[in-house]
Structure formats: C-alpha cells, structure tokens
C-alpha cells in the first residue's frame, strides 16, 4: 500500500496554467461529464491595521500524505468518482496566489458536488499543515482555520 500514497505537496503557489493543464488532461476521459474544482487563495486579511502579505506553509508531510490518502480512499468508496487530484503548497504563497487545489470528476454532477465539500473540509480539519501569516511589516501570526 505504501507506494500508492501520493505526495500532495508542491513548492510555492499553484499557477493557473498548472490548473489548466490538469483540466486538459481529462479531455481523453470521455466517460466524465462533470468536474468540480476547489481553489484556496491567500487572502490579504486586515488585522489591527496590518495586512497579510503572504502565508508560509509547513507540514508534517508523512502524516499529511497518509491522512490525505485515507480521505481520498474514503471518497472513492463513498462516491462514484472517475478521478481526484489534490495539491497543497509548502513555503511562501503571496496574497492573491493559490495554495490549495482539489479537483474531482465524475460522469454526473451530484457525486462531484457532494464529495468535493467533504474532501475539502476533511483536509482542512485533519492534515497537519501549519500556516504562518506574514504581514507587510514582516511581523507574523499563526493562521487559525475557521
């Protein structure tokens, strides 16, 4: 089983062109009728007059990939999905850039809607990933998920 665990982490921001490439790869899978994509983008949150300029992500990578693998397997067994792709940034991602990409595909729309929400919520709750929010003055605070 160990070799089936995928590495979800990429260094730095996820570019729109990488997302386009991923979409284009699915054009040969003609049993697919519906794609659903979630993108997390770094917000320039204003906190006490200071603005977030970037988030630096670190993770316990082995556990994160293992837990993500379990989330993935659970979604495949619960929903009728054709494929699923998950990427998360490590390192600095600047405000306006994309740090999180989840992409599910199915013959029909109901499985993609139901599974995507669940996968995204699970990843946010269960993966040991840590965001350090940098302000424009280089001070920082640790991100807390809502």
């Amino acid at each position, binding site marked *: 089983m160990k070799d089936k665990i995928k590495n979800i982490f990429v260094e730095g921001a996820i570019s729109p062109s990488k997302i386009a490439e991923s979409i284009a790869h699915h054009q040969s899978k003609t049993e697919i009728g519906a794609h659903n994509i979630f993108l997390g983008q770094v917000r320039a949150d204003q906190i006490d007059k200071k603005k977030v300029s970037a988030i630096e992500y*670190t993770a316990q990578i082995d556990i994160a990939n293992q837990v993500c693998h379990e989330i993935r397997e659970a979604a495949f067994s619960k929903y009728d999905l054709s494929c699923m792709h998950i990427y998360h940034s490590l390192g600095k991602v600047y405000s306006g850039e994309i740090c999180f990409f989840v992409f599910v595909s199915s013959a029909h729309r109901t499985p993609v809607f139901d599974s995507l929400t669940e996968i995204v919520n699970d990843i946010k709750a269960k993966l*040991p990933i840590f965001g350090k929010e940098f302000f424009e003055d280089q001070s920082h605070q640790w991100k807390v998920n809502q």
Partner: protein
Amino acid sequence: MEIKVRYFGQLQEITGVKEASFTLPFDTIGSLRAHLITIYPDLKNINFKIAQDNKIDSDLSDLNGTLIDLLPPFSGG
C-alpha cells in the same frame, strides 16, 4: 531507548527548538506531554496533538515509537 521529538509550526517558536533527543523513559504519550510542559510551561497555553512514528496517537497510548511529533492546531487549505 532514545526518542527524537520534533516541534512543528508555532511550537518551534514557543520552545525555541526544532527537534531534540530524549533518553528518559516515558510510559505513555501523556507522560511525555506532562514532562514537556514542565520544561516549556508555555505549552500549556496551546492545544497540540502528539504523533509517534507518523501516527497521531492518544495521550493514553503507550509510548513505544522513536519519532515523536508535536503538532499545533492545523491550518491548511
């Protein structure tokens, strides 16, 4: 038995340490947690999970792993 303890995220700031080795015996994960809080009292102010050998585990579990990770609240996505 030597165990390696790694601190993640803001726990590195609180302790000033990235990783450390311990040779003391700890029967459970909870007893390691209690020991670390005596060394770094500020750890009391933050919720953190403890993993041994790459699995998040409960304070009641026997400590028998050699790689121990201290994980502050998750904030990915």
